[in-house]
């Protein structure tokens, strides 16, 4: 077998991912010297002659003119045994290279040809398909020509006579920081671009958190966390494309007045990268607290009747384990029908409040991976047991991370059951872009006045944080009171069903 070696197409510019074969300068069976041009390749940057790194005989040309070759994939295969080893012929490979040969004369046609060859030729027309990688130089612009150079025949430019009137597109303005909408192609550095490609992620679906909206590795990872399928279908629901992430993320870090970072001994601190679920949570919380002028109100309730009802429900059937939370959820569904402003969202584009006549009920679930918010879809169509069943299923799925991305999106209202941590009260962060979140404290025996006497009752505290742009205290407190009443008197709940 021949001593075959592949010459892999290198990154001919900076950060390019592919090149298009314009023409082959050698044929199968030809002998090539080290540095002998083997192909003319057009990249987003320019057309260049690619010189062989090996001497030998051409065994295979990988592709036809007009075809694209990915960077890192074989361009030419060369049989090294066909010729002397590399290096022996180093720099001998330019028989017509007058410009680099001592005594090369000026003004001769070979000289002109050489310089012309060394200067990338212009492409005929520009579009917006540049890679967007701007590392050195003026970037890739929109340099790829859509049509083949030279029209019907691929003709090499005449020696020394590049096209007389190359079109020189005006340099594209770099995306301004602070712009709210990404126009044109998404920006990402080559390794990130490759990662996206490997994972099948469409960069256009990913919000960039880097400077000028550049998409980072973390952005891809977070996107995948939300959307394991990688197709980005579920992404926009939780990450608004119209948000200025640079601004949002910048404010995740204390901007000013933050104490200077002092470097204690490495053993005194642990540094944990904010990524994956943690980063998603951080981002979601940041958006919420930055955008929503929220107000909070709360109330203590006597949950003794609820507790009893729950026991009855458990005793009455063996299919579903019913938690108090499931019943509170059912009460919420009933209450949201009466207080649609609490089950709304604000469309800032059109400046409209959107009342939602269906309920997708989210609930905060603490998992080993971090906070997740599974959503019980169309909870308004489910019975109490149906909600309990979904609650149990999704809570388990969240814990073992089998919960699907579309089971964590599309919520219209969320509950935070912080009572599971053994606490009574809290001021939950609204799960943007929803209008409100209900906080549910623990149920604990407390003294409670019943008909003028102090009794030991099951007592719970409820809170509601609401977007004051969408609703006022009347609606929010009204809703909260409704849920509280249902807890205190399940008869009221029944009456509302």
């Amino acid at each position, binding site marked *: 077998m021949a001593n075959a070696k592949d010459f892999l*197409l*290198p*990154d*001919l*510019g*900076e950060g390019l991912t592919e090149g298009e074969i314009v023409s082959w300068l050698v044929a199968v069976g030809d002998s090539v010297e*080290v*540095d002998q041009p083997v192909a003319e390749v057009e990249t987003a*940057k*320019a057309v*260049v*002659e*690619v*010189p*062989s*790194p090996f001497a030998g005989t051409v065994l295979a040309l990988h592709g036809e003119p007009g075809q694209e070759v990915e960077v890192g994939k074989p361009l030419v295969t060369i049989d090294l045994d066909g010729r002397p080893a590399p*290096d022996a012929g*180093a*720099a*001998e490979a*330019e028989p017509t*290279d007058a*410009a*680099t*040969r*001592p*005594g*090369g*004369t*000026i*003004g001769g046609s070979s*000289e*002109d040809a050489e*310089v012309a060859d*060394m*200067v*990338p*030729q*212009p492409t005929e027309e520009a579009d917006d398909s540049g890679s967007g990688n701007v*590392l*050195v*130089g*003026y970037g890739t*612009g929109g340099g790829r020509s859509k049509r083949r150079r030279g029209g019907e025949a691929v003709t090499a430019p005449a020696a020394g*006579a*590049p*096209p*007389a009137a*190359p079109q*020189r*597109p005006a*340099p594209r303005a770099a995306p301004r920081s602070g712009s709210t909408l990404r126009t044109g192609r998404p920006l990402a550095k080559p*390794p990130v671009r490759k*990662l996206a490609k490997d994972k099948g992620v469409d960069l256009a679906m990913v919000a960039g958190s880097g400077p000028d909206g550049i998409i980072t*590795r973390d952005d891809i990872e977070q996107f995948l966390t939300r959307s394991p399928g990688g197709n980005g279908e579920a992404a926009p629901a939780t990450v608004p494309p119209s948000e200025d992430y640079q601004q949002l993320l910048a404010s995740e870090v204390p901007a000013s007045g933050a104490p*200077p*970072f002092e*470097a204690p001994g490495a053993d005194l601190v642990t*540094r944990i*990268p904010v990524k994956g679920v943690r980063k998603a949570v951080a981002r979601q919380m940041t958006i919420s607290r930055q955008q929503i002028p929220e107000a909070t109100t709360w109330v203590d309730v006597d949950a003794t009747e609820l507790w009893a009802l729950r026991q009855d429900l458990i005793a009455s059937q063996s299919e579903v384990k019913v938690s108090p939370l499931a019943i509170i959820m059912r009460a919420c569904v009933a209450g949201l029908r009466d207080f649609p402003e609490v089950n709304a969202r604000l469309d800032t584009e059109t400046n409209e409040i959107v009342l939602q006549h269906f309920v997708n009920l989210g609930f905060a679930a603490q998992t080993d991976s971090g906070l997740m918010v599974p959503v019980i879809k169309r909870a308004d169509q489910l019975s109490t047991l149906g909600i309990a069943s979904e609650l149990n299923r999704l809570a388990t799925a969240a814990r073992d991370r089998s919960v699907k991305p579309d089971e964590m999106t599309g919520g219209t209202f969320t509950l935070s059951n912080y009572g599971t941590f053994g606490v009574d009260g809290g001021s939950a962060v609204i799960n943007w872009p929803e209008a409100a979140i209900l906080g549910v404290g623990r149920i604990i025996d407390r003294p409670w006045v019943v008909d003028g006497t102090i009794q030991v009752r099951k007592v719970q505290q409820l809170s509601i944080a609401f977007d004051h742009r969408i609703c006022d205290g009347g609606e929010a407190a009204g809703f909260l009171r409704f849920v509280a009443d249902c807890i205190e008197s399940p008869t009221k709940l029944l009456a509302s069903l």
Partner: protein
Amino acid sequence: MSAASNPPQSVPGPVDPNTLLPPDEPVQLLDDQGTLHEVEGFPLDLKDEDFRNLYRYMVLARRVDKQAINLQRQGQLGVYASLLGQEAAQIGGAYALDEQDWVFPSYREMGAALVRGVDPGKVLHLFRGTWLSNHDPMATHFGLLSIPIGTQALHAAGFAMGAKFDGKDLVVMTYFGDGATSEGDPHEAMNFAAVYDAPCIFFVQNNQYAISVPLSKQTRAPTIAHKAVGYGMPGFRCDGNDVLATYAVARQAVDRARRGEGPSLIEALTYRMEAHTTADDPTRYRTPEELEEWKRRDPIARFETFLEAEGLLDDDFRAQIDEEARGYAARMREEIYDAPHGDPMELFEHVYVDPPASYEEQKAMLRREIASNQEGGS
């Protein structure tokens, strides 16, 4: 306060700005036809051997340059900045230096590197990303190629000031381009060097474009050389494609610095016939006609015509240079081809004795990035 306690060592009187102004016309010794014309104030002190050497360096530089481009197109270098067309400017300037003198280059100075006896392949490690360089700056008196625009001017000015304070007999030459004259670093360097009479030559290769920005968008000054007056140093201007002119002008500036008369600014008018770097497409910002015009002023061809007329160039000498060029090319390939990459964390070594917190943060950031790359690669 510091000025009072550490004044300039010589306090010059008022300078007549007219003595600092560049001549109306750039100094040119060889006309476009390769005919030698003497210019007053810029005598040539070169022997036949020097003429041949200048030619040799220029041809070698062009061959080395082509080999570096090939290595980039074979995937061996990330990027490379060609000097095609600027050989005379670089080499004439560096040739005026003595062995004890120093050069602080930009990223385009492979020609100056050759004159300083630097093996070009060793310098190319910067473009491969394997290491800053593999040459010995202390042995060759050739600093590291500097990618940030104009920072080397500060190194040069500081080095020259240090040499002066130490009473060392050496001159420093730093190269930068027309684009760098709009940056703060060269400005500060030139100002400081002038204030302290530092033996420093600021050699500007004005190749007409800062990547794609033409000189007309770079400065409103009559010429770059005129800027020297503002610093209180003489400005020289020469045909940068005439190796005898760049040498003769540099000779004057170097001699002046060695006499303790302070720095000079040299503007050499030249043109890079290649792209700014291998990642650039110059056809988008300059015309083929312009390129044609400069190709007619090819510095090697012009000097060749002169040497042939003088009988200094024969086939033996050409063959000798050719063989030397092959040797350089082979060594460059040997040095660079598939050269292994080191540990990226080494970036953080050799800089601080007591690293600041931000530095540790950056170090940790890189470590995490490497770790996540390795995960991602599985």
